[in-house]
């Protein structure tokens, strides 16, 4: 079974490809949806095409599936009507799958289930990365606010932080918000740090 993954994100495609290989599928190709990707896909004559539901290139792909003369068998979206939860899980995970006419659904289901699991795993990694990134930028803001306080009020780093924290608690705000307000005020007043 030849599986083509159309994906812009290197990491997500890799996460999916690894999972498929571990499950014993070995004819897997990754095609980014750029330039003449449709022509490449046609030459590959895939049995299954997996694509991120959020990819803006789905319309381009579907048009190719309608007009292609190179593909011997029509390809349609995979929908197992006997199983609503499967469709829901796929859409929630952001997976869309196109399958050649005639491929038995018992053969496609495990691929789709695996794709759903892997897409979810990728989403989790992504949100952890985002959180880490936010935490990092929060820390930078707090650091800058601390140094303003240290300079302006001759405080130690520890005392500057304690002051930020107690103001935040008194105002019922997050430390990072108080820090940001301090930076803004300091900028407005032309204060150097």
């Amino acid at each position, binding site marked *: 079974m030849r599986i083509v993954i159309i994906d812009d994100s290197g990491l997500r495609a890799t996460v999916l490809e690894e999972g498929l290989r571990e499950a014993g599928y070995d004819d897997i190709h990754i095609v980014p949806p750029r*330039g003449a990707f449709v022509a490449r896909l046609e030459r590959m004559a895939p049995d299954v095409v997996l694509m991120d*539901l*959020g*990819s*803006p*290139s*789905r*319309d*381009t*792909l*579907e*048009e190719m599936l*309608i007009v292609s003369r190179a593909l011997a068998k029509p390809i*349609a*979206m995979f*929908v197992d009507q006997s199983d609503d939860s499967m*469709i*829901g899980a796929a*859409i*929630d995970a952001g997976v*869309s799958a196109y399958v050649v006419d005639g491929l038995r659904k018992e053969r496609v289901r495990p691929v789709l289930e695996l794709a759903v699991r892997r897409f979810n795993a990728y989403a989790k990694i992504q949100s952890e990365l985002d959180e880490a990134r936010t935490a990092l930028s929060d820390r930078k803001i707090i650091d800058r606010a601390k140094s303003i306080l240290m300079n302006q009020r001759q405080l130690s780093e520890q005392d500057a932080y304690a002051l930020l924290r107690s103001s935040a608690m008194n105002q019922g705000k997050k430390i990072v918000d108080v820090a940001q307000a301090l930076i803004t005020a300091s900028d407005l007043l032309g204060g150097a740090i």
Partner: protein
Amino acid sequence: MTTALKIAFLPLTDAAVLVAAREKGFAEAEGLSLELVRTTSWATLRDRLVFGQVHAAQMLAPLAMAVTLGLSQQPAALAAPYKLNVNGNMLVMARDFAKALEPDVAARLLDPLGTAHDFATAIGLWRRKPVIGVVHRFSSHALMLRYWLASAGVDPDRDVVLRVLPPSLTVEAMRAGEIDGFIAGEPWGSAAVEAGLAETVAIGERIWRRGIEKVLAFREAWLEENPETVDRLLRALLRAALWCDDPANHGMLAALLADPRYVDQPAALIERALSGQIVVRGGEAAIANPDFMLFSREATPFPWRSQALWIYSQLVRWEMVAHDAATAARAGAVFRPDIFRRALAESNTPMPGASMKLEGAVDLPLAVGSHRGGLTLGPDRFFDGRVFDPERIEEYLAGFVQVR
């Protein structure tokens, strides 16, 4: 009690009524809490609706029909009781290509037939078969582009290459030279003009003065099972549409749409379509087209069955569906004037007396029979002067010159 509704949309200026309904409190006043689900492809918007992930969607009218007729992946009976707008598209082409067209841009827009013939000549002068982006085969713009090209003897399937790509990728594809032009809903044409990549060649409103565009589509079964919620939503949308049509609100509406959660493009670009101030060539003065995009006036939201059948006639014309009476009836029935009437019976909106009319027969504003208030229909001519009689589809289709 508040009812929560999810509605899918694409980042386009004609999502305006949905955005206004949510942001300006019209939905809330009807006890609805709208969650607008931003989607970047029509395929995904369609799937979200068909598989029940959203209750309704801002849909290309021909796509709603195609899904119902089983022409676009998983078949599902869809129903469109409300039109979100008419008009709002434009065709833009690379500046080099446009050099072969009428240089007086105002004259160019006013004379679509002449421009179509100039375009046909320009095809031969261009370095390759022109590649024109369309957002979907089942879009009103693609059908209008085909109609317009064919009027000058251009076969849209052979003399040009129509490439499908979503609105939000059009400008980048122009920049990369993958396409030579595109027809899409605003603000994407204006964005390409502003970037100096393209010039406006034709605007939808001049091809068909009252050209059908996006509808609000539901799964038919859900629509039938939830009459009270549907009615509340339609009432909220109509009030939002009145607000959107008021020129005093265009600035605020453009600012709302510019938000990254919605269209995510500069407000000044978005406002061009709302106010009908169309810049044809970057850096030049705007040309006024007051009917560039309509939301409420002239009973715009009313889903005329004859308009659904016009779309059907074009699907037949381009061999996307085989014509027979039963298919025509199913296509026409996707539009649900009965639901519109039920939902807005108590409102003071002028309500057309009929559900079908001749399309393309009105030259000057025309007062027509309505159940309440005065209803005036605006000019709705096709640029070639043809009139569509929904009772005579075959005769209408036979009247077109074959382009192949």
